[in-house]
């Protein structure tokens, strides 16, 4: 008995889970402090009201974009062979969106009123639209993930009837794909519009933001799915992957990066002509100021250019380490883009003085409490995926046929 326990302890899996649980507990502690003492414990101010948590929120929603893209590919474009990849993407999507909801609950001053956006509508607000879409889409994702629970061994053993019912929800997958596509196209871009409609912040006030937000999400979302699948495939025999399937997605990601780079190039270049107060300062902050390393390295070179070359070259992509590196860099580049975008409009202080065109700057560095709470949310995401791979077989590319079997039976039963 003791020996058995020792061997369990020695497993890297155990240590990984312990590590994540410790992070989650410290995150819960930070969250308790935030709810008891209020947002005064953060480094957020009236000049920088949106910080680290909003960046995590934006990033996790974008990284969950694989769900709607791969579902659309399988059920609308009828690329059936990608079905097991879509399954992984949907699971990651649910994790990403639930992470977003957690950070938002931390961030808003009155988490007890989180439901107000659903009750008191303002159809003119991009943030209202985002909230509604995320609420609906989270529901869709839950419905898409329930069949995975129904398909798990322990559920089928304990509650076979319930398991069968849950699995039958999968019958509606094409409908979910349509709804998910619509909702995602709306809110992934509206998140950019949330910034893009604010005339008070000239660096944000441009029509390009919604477009850049959705295109970057279309690259990074599937990249996250493929990356997570590969890592799971390398680390555990419970994850069974077909690299050639994932390769097709990676190639798609490479082409999306081309589009993203093209749009980003014109977006930035167009802003660089003639001086405009606050916009030019913001652009300078990105290209040569404190955010320059993030921008040139994180966003452009490492986040787009390098992975684009790797993924589009069959020779480079076939080297698995390079392939994984490229996917990892895309995910990092997406996070850098969301962080920079959120920061740049706030660090240059808006100018309302009659004669004052002199730019003013402010600073923001997240507090320890913010970092601990944010790390807790990320650890939750990693733990959920880890457990999903282990117990729900969310990465299993040989499971296609089984999943399709119950579909005709349910139809018959319904008739």
């Amino acid at each position, binding site marked *: 008995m003791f020996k058995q326990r020792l061997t369990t302890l020695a497993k890297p899996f155990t240590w990984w889970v312990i590590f994540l649980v410790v992070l989650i507990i410290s995150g819960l502690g930070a969250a308790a402090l935030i709810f008891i003492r209020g947002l005064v414990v953060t480094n957020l101010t*009236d000049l920088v009201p949106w910080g680290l948590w909003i960046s995590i929120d934006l990033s996790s929603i974008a990284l969950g974009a694989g769900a709607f893209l791969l579902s659309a590919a399988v059920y609308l474009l009828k690329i059936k062979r990608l079905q097991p990849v879509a399954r992984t993407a949907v699971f990651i999507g649910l994790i990403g969106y639930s992470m977003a909801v957690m950070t938002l609950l931390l*961030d808003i001053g*009155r988490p007890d009123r989180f439901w107000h956006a659903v009750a008191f509508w303002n159809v003119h607000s991009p943030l209202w639209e985002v909230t509604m879409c995320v609420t609906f889409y989270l529901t869709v994702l839950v419905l898409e993930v329930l069949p995975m629970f129904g398909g798990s061994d322990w559920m089928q053993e304990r509650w076979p009837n319930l398991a069968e019912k849950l699995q039958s929800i999968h019958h509606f997958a094409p409908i979910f794909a349509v709804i998910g596509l619509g909702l995602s196209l709306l809110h992934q871009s509206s998140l950019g519009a949330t910034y893009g409609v604010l005339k008070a912040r000239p660096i944000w006030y441009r029509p390009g933001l919604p477009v850049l937000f959705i295109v970057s999400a279309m690259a990074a979302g599937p990249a996250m799915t493929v990356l997570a699948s590969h890592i799971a495939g390398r680390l555990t025999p419970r994850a069974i992957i077909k690299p050639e399937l994932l390769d097709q997605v990676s190639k798609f990601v490479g082409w999306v990066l081309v589009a993203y780079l093209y749009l980003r190039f014109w977006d930035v270049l167009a802003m660089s002509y003639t001086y405009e107060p606050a916009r030019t300062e913001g652009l300078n902050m990105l290209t040569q100021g404190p955010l320059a390393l993030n921008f040139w390295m994180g966003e452009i070179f490492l986040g787009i250019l390098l992975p684009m070359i790797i993924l589009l070259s069959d020779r480079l992509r076939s080297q698995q380490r390079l392939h994984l590196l490229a996917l990892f860099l895309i995910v990092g580049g997406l996070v850098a883009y969301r962080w920079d975008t959120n920061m740049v409009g706030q660090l240059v202080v808006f100018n*309302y003085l*009659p004669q*004052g065109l002199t730019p003013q700057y402010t600073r923001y560095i997240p507090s320890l409490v913010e970092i601990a709470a944010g790390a807790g949310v990320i650890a939750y995401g990693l733990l959920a995926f880890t457990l999903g791979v282990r117990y729900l077989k969310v990465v299993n590319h040989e499971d296609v046929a089984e999943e399709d079997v119950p579909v005709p039976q349910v139809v018959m039963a319904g008739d």
Partner: protein
Amino acid sequence: MTATTLKRRDFLKIGAAGLATTAVAAGMTRKQHGAADTAETSPHRWAMVIDQSKCTGCEYCTMACRANNDVSPDISWTRVIQLESEGTKDVFLPIPCMQCGDAPCVHICPVSANYQRPDGIVMMDYDRCIGCRYCEMACPYGARSFNWETFEGENPAVPTWGQPEVERRPRGVVEKCSFCYQRIDRGLAQGLTPGVDPAATPACVMACPTGARMFGDLNDPNSIVSQALAENPSYRLREDLGTDPRVYYLPVRDTNKEGVTCSNNA
């Protein structure tokens, strides 16, 4: 201004027509706040005129506002900023909420906690605000403050500068100047004229020792503000943004001839 607003509204509605629920929502939003208003339309259009040649930067306005609206010492609903000196005289810029005719905060609030009364005052529904702070990003004038912590205990501005007339805001909501709507509404009910009768006029206007602040109805050509604007050159902050602010400034001029400046002796 009105034309563009209408166009965009129409565009949004057409775009959303696919979702039948959206139309319902638009009606719902209007109804909810229509009920809270005194009337669907108002004969008044309140405005404030601030004469910078008279402002000495004493911040009596800030203090009177803190007392009357029970504002925390950490927050100023009306800030006074010192601009560069013009000659030997210091120039100040008091900044309350601009009560924009086309307010960015009203457009973007995800829960309709920001709304505009028919008389033009931009209101905050503190029971509805979720504290997302999106309005702080959207306001071009930095007029909004978030309650980062609970304002507990006595208000140091009370009773020296006045008595609280409105409920203190809870932690976690955004707050801002309201043109002292409570004084206006109560005054009108008593048959008083805001801007003329002290009890019906915003606290900051009454507290100003030099009479730099004037308040009144733009729809009334005889009001103090209408006359001040007719007789003096004036400007508003960031008019280029199209927000249509209801706070006007009379700039400091090199020669301030007697009789040209408007007085607030009413």
